[in-house]
């Protein structure tokens, strides 16, 4: 069946089986392979994307449920020009090794910082506990997210909107 939604600001229409997950639709139909599939049962969080601004496990959602939604993937949170402040912070703190969990970490952290730019370490840990990482031991990820809070403060985001935005 046909489903229409927006992905990273672009209107898409795809013809899918009702049983197709949003994750598989993004990866294999729309070729947005930045969204990773690690468990297909909603535990690992690697497939996290933003659906109408909420962090959602795209392996637990069917593509047809995305009808009319605004979906943002890690590709939509990135630019060609340079890394975003959140991505720069991840790089600086060595908050990724194999990179497989990273897209889910970025989308989850972005959703958290957008809603709660003043969250503390305990809150970051609580929210990220839904995303598994087997390489880093999480310490540098938490540090990276905490440091990126500055870029999500209302004044920082206002200047970001008025300035360059790829």
């Amino acid at each position, binding site marked *: 069946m046909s489903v229409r939604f927006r992905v990273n600001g672009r209107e898409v229409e795809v013809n899918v089986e009702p049983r197709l997950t949003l994750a598989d639709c993004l990866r294999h139909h729309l070729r947005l392979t930045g969204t990773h599939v*690690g468990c297909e049962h909603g*535990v690992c969080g690697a497939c996290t994307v933003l659906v109408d601004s909420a962090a959602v496990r795209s392996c637990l959602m069917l593509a047809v449920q995305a009808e009319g939604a605004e979906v943002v993937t890690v590709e939509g949170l990135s630019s060609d020009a340079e890394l975003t402040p959140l991505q720069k912070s991840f790089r600086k703190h060595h908050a990724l090794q194999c990179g497989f969990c990273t*897209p889910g970490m970025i989308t989850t952290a972005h959703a958290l910082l957008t809603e709660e730019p003043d969250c503390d370490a305990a809150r970051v840990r609580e929210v990220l506990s839904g995303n598994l990482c087997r390489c880093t031991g999480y310490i540098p990820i938490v540090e990276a997210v905490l440091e990126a809070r500055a870029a999500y403060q209302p004044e920082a985001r206002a200047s970001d909107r008025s300035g360059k935005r790829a």
Partner: protein
Amino acid sequence: MRTVNSLIGSPIERVEDLRFLRGRGQYVDDLARQDMLHAAVLRSAVAHGRIRAIDTAAARALPGVHSVITAKDIGNRVPRVPMRLQPLPDFEPFGQPVIAETKVRYVGEALAVVLADTAAIAEDALGLIEIDIEPLPPVADRQASAKDASLLFEEAGTNRAITFRAVRGDVAAAFAGAPYVRRERLRTQRHMALPLEPRGLLAEWDGARERLTIYGGAKVLFFNRRTLAKQLGVPESAIDIVENDVGGGFGARGEFYPEDFLIPFAARLAGRPVKWTEDRREHLMCMNHAREAECDVEIACTRDGTILGLRGHAYVDVGAYMRTNGAVGARNVAQFMSGPYRIPHIDIDVALQLTNKTPVGTYRGPGRFETDFFRERLLDMVAQDLGLDRVEFRRRNLVSQREMPYQIATITPFESKDELDSGDYHSTLDRCLEEIKWSEKSKLAGELIDGRYHGLAVGCFIEGGAAGPKESARIVLEPDGRYSVYVGSSAIGQGLETVFAQIAADALEVTIDCIGGVFHGSTSYVEDGYGAYHSRSVVMGGSAILDAATKLREAIRAQAAQRLDCRPSDVEIIEGVKAVGPGGKSVALTELSSISAEGAFLNKKHTYTYGAHAAHVAVDPKLGHVELLDYVLVADCGRIINPLTVHGQAVGSLVQGLGGAMMEHLAYDQEGQLLTGSLADYLIPTASDFPNLRAVVLENHPSPINPLGAKGAGEGGIIAAGGVMANAVANALSALGMQPRELPLTPTRIWELVQAAQQGVAKQ
């Protein structure tokens, strides 16, 4: 003017991150081909049984199904998964057919492969295959295995694959007059590497050129190519195995698995590209398991705490088959039980027992995590018995710097001798105690504060690295003046591209931007490669790059000398940009015609990174919950190339080790059914489990046996975690006399131990 060696030792941000952070990494499941078929594998739901019939008719009739492959489609004899390490004749009877032939021996063993237009149709078709298996009595644990009542391989007549023995000195004499002896039984549980990216393969068969290209390789591409070429009856040169971005390895990914034959075979059979990606359930029951070991050992000491000897038996549950590196963990349990300590007399045998469970292989720190738990637990019990300070007892028995190189136990039957290469083991212990503020905190040992008992522990470890025999590299001076580095090592997420660029740039005396790329992970890049295991990439691949760089600079000088009409020894290469001869005559390197040089590093010795761990825990005796209040890891890993990545290895492996210590468990029932087939059942650490830990990585004692002075890192965090956490919990609950003898230390297990101890105390 830059100075030489300014990159090695610098915390250079990784080049890999630029693609990973933007969702531009390319893992094998990200690949797609026109006309591609999708494979799904039917797996045995029975742990032990004889195959009577497999009926694939209904599956083949499903629209969208291309074909179904079973053992009888493979040929006269189904190929076996080979032993990559320790390929002893003893293991041959226990090899795994790449697809079940006459029997199934574990839940998850491949029975059939469906090829279909979509992955969903292939999975639908699995449900239409009718399997008739005559169940046989399952061998669920090593005790049942040892009885040999039900045999996995009837023709072998035994479930014991082999017995290794680790010997040093004369243990009988050491025990004969020993004033103190303690005997203990200790056990570690089956768990696994669990990289976050599931396994996958994409195989393409080019019928016209009779060539296979396989994507999704990792770790040991060249060995796997040799294996597959033999199995398919094609020359090695007809196969290229390519490594994509790899979502974690930890020893388990990249070994030759049954699918490494089945998927390329299917692609050749179908004449079309075939892709296969496992799901997490398959991963949990098919990728190598590890760590299920038990020991019954005795230690002999003087009353003042000098260790005299160690003897006894160990048992490793190796699962249903002996495949690739399945003997390494068991060997290490025996050989490294002495760890960093001076134990003059050792005699330990280790039996490799087959059971109807997933075959084992190496997992980060193979055998070492297990044997460190055994040894460090034992040391704390001895210290308690003899009224010795735990730290002084360890200090007294650590191998000292002047005893290096120090010979450790030799393994039979293959006479594997080894020696500890270098270092100051006391210094890392002292630093660790200082970092955790031992003298202050140890006063809390056993104290009950706000309903929780506090406990402390410290333990020492060694980590082996630099497995030989060889690694290869090639450096090419490109027409644009930049350098391309090709290497036989493999990247498994550890930041190889960055670290190797640092080594190459320093060796070539250029800036890191002059390294156009580090190319790894294809059997087409270098003549022969050995890959990534046993903490070998930096030592072996890095040293090979040094050799190639030296040779490339010689080649540049030679060619420039011809142009400048002088002797090569008169040519100076300036900043990797131009070659200057006598009198200032120069030639730009971009003007030289294609120059490349091959390098290699050969090595028979191992490096030994070493260090200490210390933990401070609070244990709630009513809930069995353990909170980690502080944990310090100190490791000296020789020369550090990139402090950022080496620190990442230390912390990451430590948290994996805490997972093995506290929660991870591949549980089976007596029927050989895996009870933990999802990530909701198989628990690994999350961001909220262990927030309080630190790693201090030192480079005070470079290795004397390679030109970089590196020792390899990445396992030191995991190795000591089980022993140290168990000792910290025992220390906390010392008032109850509780001694954990088994991992993991789940709340349930601790609660049960507390209950048992309290009842014991009440009875007295």
